[in-house]
């Protein structure tokens, strides 16, 4: 991707995040029961969404690697995992901060919270596994299998609030949205802004991984 396009995307995502902040703090109305603390939702939900989406990209890239055997898919997989872990970390911490005044506890072993912690740990293990294997082809193969198997935890986490009794709020349901129109607009805008930010970060992270591959290629040529 050209430098001009990358700069444009960075600026656009920065503007979108600023717009998201404006909507979350000033445009969206104050929730009647929870008050201002409910505004955490506008960054908490998109963080979790980006985390899930990033792991889905890794899942697809892992399948593509096992199918085609091209290391570019492996580079996409690890790049996406790293961003996914960062956003899942945000989702877990911001959720915990929201829970303190609303549930009167920082953490509870609710199915959604427990599964989110499990998903986070699975992808931390993915990163650790990669660090433990030196051979690039072997590392890519192991990581691809892990990336596919590990993804099973993501839909479980996503549907946990629909399948089991849980105290976690359900915002999006097949019947409709549990938000007022202005709250919904803010939520959708923040979801779009975070998705854009994900792609911008992915481009940068992928560039780093391509550079690493070049270093490995030069080193192997010297041997």
């Amino acid at each position, binding site marked *: 991707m050209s430098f001009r396009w990358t700069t444009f995307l960075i600026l656009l995502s920065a503007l979108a995040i600023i717009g998201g902040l404006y909507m979350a703090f000033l445009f969206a109305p104050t929730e009647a029961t929870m008050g*201002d603390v409910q505004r955490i939702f506008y960054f908490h939900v998109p963080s979790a969404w980006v985390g899930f989406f990033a792991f889905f990209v890794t899942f697809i890239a892992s399948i593509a690697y096992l199918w085609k055997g091209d290391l570019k898919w492996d580079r996409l997989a690890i790049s996406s995992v790293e961003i996914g872990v960062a956003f899942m970390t945000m989702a877990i911490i911001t959720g915990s901060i*929201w829970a303190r*005044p609303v549930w009167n506890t920082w953490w509870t072993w609710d199915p959604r919270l427990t599964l989110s912690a499990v998903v986070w740990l699975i992808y931390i293990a993915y990163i650790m596994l990669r660090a433990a294997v030196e051979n690039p082809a072997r590392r890519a193969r192991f990581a691809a299998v892990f990336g596919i198997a590990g993804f099973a935890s993501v839909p479980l986490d996503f549907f946990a609030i629909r399948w089991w009794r849980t105290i976690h709020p359900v915002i999006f349901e097949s019947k409709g949205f549990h938000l007022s129109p202005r709250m919904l607009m803010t939520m959708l805008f923040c979801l779009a802004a975070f998705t854009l930010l994900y792609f911008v970060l992915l481009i940068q992270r992928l560039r780093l991984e391509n550079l690493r591959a070049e270093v490995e290629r*030069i080193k192997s040529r010297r041997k």
Partner: protein
Amino acid sequence: MGYLFGAYAVFWLVTFLLVFSIERRQRELEKEVEALRKKQEPLMEV
């Protein structure tokens, strides 16, 4: 309000940490590529 600002601070902190970490690793790798290319140049001339 403290909880609200705390949560938004987490977003900015994690985002900046991720961006800085990518930047730092990229700079290190660029240096490494440059050093490897310089080492390779005399070999290419032979």
